[in-house]
């Protein structure tokens, strides 16, 4: 008998009687102002929300805040003039040079400031983690209340990889002192298009 057969037959023998799943597992969250809740939560997790009117405003903000920064890449055609680093590369290892990546998020979640980013908009899975700084662009109308709404909206297997990103990477593994910028991005700005 293979291990597979052995494990599965012991499970069949030992598992309890079938229990129907009929509990309510979806809840409503009510927030007065979805954007304000999203922005507050994002700041709690170490990121920053910037409300912008259009892509022109994003360009102006990036130019102001990342003045003189080289190795900027973006997946957003409207922002291509900001980029000096092509994502048309052979190996994701080349992204190690990257200082700023500006990518598109599908939607945001107000309760936890998570943004769904998937291969639909990511040419390289490692892009949001390997870059030194990360900026994500979402639309204000695409901010949902909570994770139940998020999973109604996203089809997790639409692409091979997708992730919820909430804030910049962080650790508190040394004496519980929070340090922003563990292995992933050292900072996260979310541009929210009106």
């Amino acid at each position, binding site marked *: 008998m293979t291990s597979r057969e052995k494990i599965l037959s*012991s499970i069949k023998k030992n598992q309890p009687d079938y229990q129907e*799943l009929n*509990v309510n597992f979806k*809840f409503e969250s009510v927030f007065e102002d979805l954007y304000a809740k999203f922005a507050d939560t994002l700041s*709690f997790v170490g990121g920053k929300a910037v409300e912008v009117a259009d892509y022109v405003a994003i360009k102006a903000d990036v130019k102001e805040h990342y003045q003189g920064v080289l190795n900027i890449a973006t997946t957003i055609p409207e922002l291509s003039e900001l980029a000096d680093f092509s994502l048309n590369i052979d190996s994701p290892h080349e992204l190690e040079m990257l200082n700023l990546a500006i990518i598109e998020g599908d939607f945001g979640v107000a*309760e936890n400031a998570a943004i769904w980013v998937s291969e639909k908009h990511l040419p390289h899975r490692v892009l949001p983690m390997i870059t030194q700084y990360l900026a994500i662009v979402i639309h204000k109308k695409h901010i949902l209340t909570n994770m139940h709404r998020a999973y109604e909206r996203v089809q997790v297997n639409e692409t091979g990889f997708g992730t919820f990103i909430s804030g910049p990477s962080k650790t508190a593994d040394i004496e519980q002192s929070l340090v922003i910028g563990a292995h992933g991005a050292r900072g996260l700005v979310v541009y929210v298009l009106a």
Partner: protein
Amino acid sequence: MNNIRIDHASASTEFNKDEAHVDWHDETLWFVRSKRDKAVFQIPEWEQLREAGSQIKNHVLSNMHDLLIAFEEKATQNGIKIHWAADASEHNQIILDILKNEGVNRMVKSKSMLTEECNLNEFLKEKGIGVIDSDLGERIVQMRGEHPSHIVLPAIHLKRSDVGETFHEHLGTEKGATDPQYLTEAARLHLRDTFLTRKVALTGVNFAIAETGGFVVCTNEGNADMGVHLADVHIASMGFEKIIPKAEHLGVFLRLLARSATGQPITTFSSHFHKPRAGQAMHIIIVDNGRTKQLGRPDFRNSLKCIRCAACFNTCPVYRRSGGHSYHTAIAGPIGSILAPNLNMAENADLPFASTLCGSCSNVCPVKIDIHEQLYKWRQVLVQEGHVSSVKSLGIKSMATVLSSPSFYRTAGKLGRFLMKNTPFVTNNNLNVWYQHREMPDVPKESFREWYLSREKGKKE
């Protein structure tokens, strides 16, 4: 209990010698517990969420066989190779074979308590494979030749000066440096190089989705993603109980997990893997290692609902004051104390006694595991199976004899009061563990029964 080199009580005594450090440990974990409370109080439906999490997991336990088969089929269709491991050694061997097949002798690994349970690092080291743990806390304890003392905060037993010394020795940071920002930066640079040069990366699995054949890995540091997206091969190790029926159930679990663990609304990264990226290979190892046996124990199977948030650690008055290493097992704390005896009763017979049975663990558990009740039930099983020290079982047996005979009870009471009054050294000595930490109480003049009888007599007269 003879098989344990150092049991929980002795290890705790050792840990408690540095009082200032124990106080710090206690307060820091309580602070994490307080952060959990703050996050939880913002969710009005928290108790319903816990109930939902609990019911989904109950359903999973009852439908485990079919869910795993559905998962295997879907994942295989997605291009993921599924392996089954009956025990730790088979799990470790599968990984070694994959590494050999790739012709590599080193690997990067993100946090996986299952690989700790299987002693994977030690096994691979013996075979000449270098493993680097990439979670900062795990890397710190790995450099020191220790194991994690907490499943979410692996280096919580260390002070920043300890980390500074370790990094000075292994990463060449300045001697005496203790700034967490500076030390974390040093680890970031060291591990970036690791991520860029390893062809095989291993992760754990937080949730595996039967419906879609994918899995979710949660981290704050981004280390799991950095490892696997830069490697040619991704190996994910999972205990079979990580399965959930549908993706929409993640709405419940991702809302519960980080809030219960650290008080964050969600981890920084909650990454969903369904297919290997172009040119990459992806393996999932589904591990039993005692879990089928636990599934067959009606009193203890609920422990398999655990989502590894460690809320029960942070709230436990015993864990906070004894430290994770006292539990001498990969998963410490209250949940570890009900999981470990299943794997080896003789070696872990002390752990269900490392509790006050206060029930705080069960109250914070996001999937409503009856942890303190299971601790209590394990005590019965361990005594019945003869795994409890002769002193403890003799004490319990003599108490049973005394309590079952009223006349014996009365005589023993009289004798006890007489001895304590006239020969206090009989009880006030270091052989009496109770006396080690407390003064013995004053001896009452008479027993309650004697007092009651004389009072009744007085009434009649």
